[in-house]
């Protein structure tokens, strides 16, 4: 049984509210008393996922599920999908536009940052359909 479930909509190219969902998720986890190190790793990964929804996707959602043993964060969007996931995962690769790069986004480190900070990272994508990223953060030290 999960302790808490929340879903946040993230709009395409909305730079004013970009980061709000991550900030809210961070506040929720802190309030629940989740370990500061986990909150930190999750916040970084969540922010990267949120920015990707803003700059690369046609819109999507971030969902948070807090369980007794772990926190699950899912980023799901409605397209356009990623043609070559392996390439997208490699650090430095980015298809971000010049405008977006001028704002300091598009370093090509987002997916790698997510994979590094999550305890489990899974990505699925289909061109024309969308991208789904599932990240799991353990709350209890593994035996």
């Amino acid at each position: 049984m999960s302790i808490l479930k929340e879903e946040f909509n993230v709009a395409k190219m909305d730079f004013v509210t970009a980061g709000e969902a991550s900030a809210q998720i961070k506040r929720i986890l802190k309030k629940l008393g989740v370990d500061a190190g986990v909150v930190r790793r999750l916040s970084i990964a969540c922010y990267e996922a949120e920015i990707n929804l803003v700059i690369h996707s046609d819109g999507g959602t971030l969902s948070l599920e807090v369980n007794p043993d772990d926190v699950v964060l899912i980023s799901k969007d409605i397209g356009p999908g990623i043609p070559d996931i392996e390439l997208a995962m490699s650090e430095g690769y980015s298809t971000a536009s010049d405008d977006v790069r001028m704002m300091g986004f598009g370093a090509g480190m987002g997916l790698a940052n997510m994979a590094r900070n999550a305890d489990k990272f899974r990505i699925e994508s289909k061109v024309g359909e969308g991208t789904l990223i599932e990240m799991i953060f353990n709350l209890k030290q593994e035996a």
Partner: protein
Amino acid sequence: MTVNELAKLIDARLLNGAAGENEVKCGYACDLLSWVMAHGSDGMAWITVQTHMNVIAVASLHEMSCVIIPEGIAVEQEVLDKAAEEGIAVLGTQLDAYRICGKMAEAGVGAA
């Protein structure tokens, strides 16, 4: 040192009048947000020429002490207000990032 003390050191103004008593734990200079997201830490004083809302989002997620805007670059009031709301100081100085780093290092503010 505090943000107010840091302001004096780098000839800066506290642009949003907030969080001047925050403790500065280390310094960092970078304009790529993902990079800062990966390397940021709490209490950090972050120098960047970026001035849009997402700078505050990154600083806030890391619970930084302040953002330092070099070379007299203007910052929109909306961004300053958001930073104040998040408890993050925004400093503005005429010095460039290189000179700011030099002064901070000389005063003993360490790297991240």
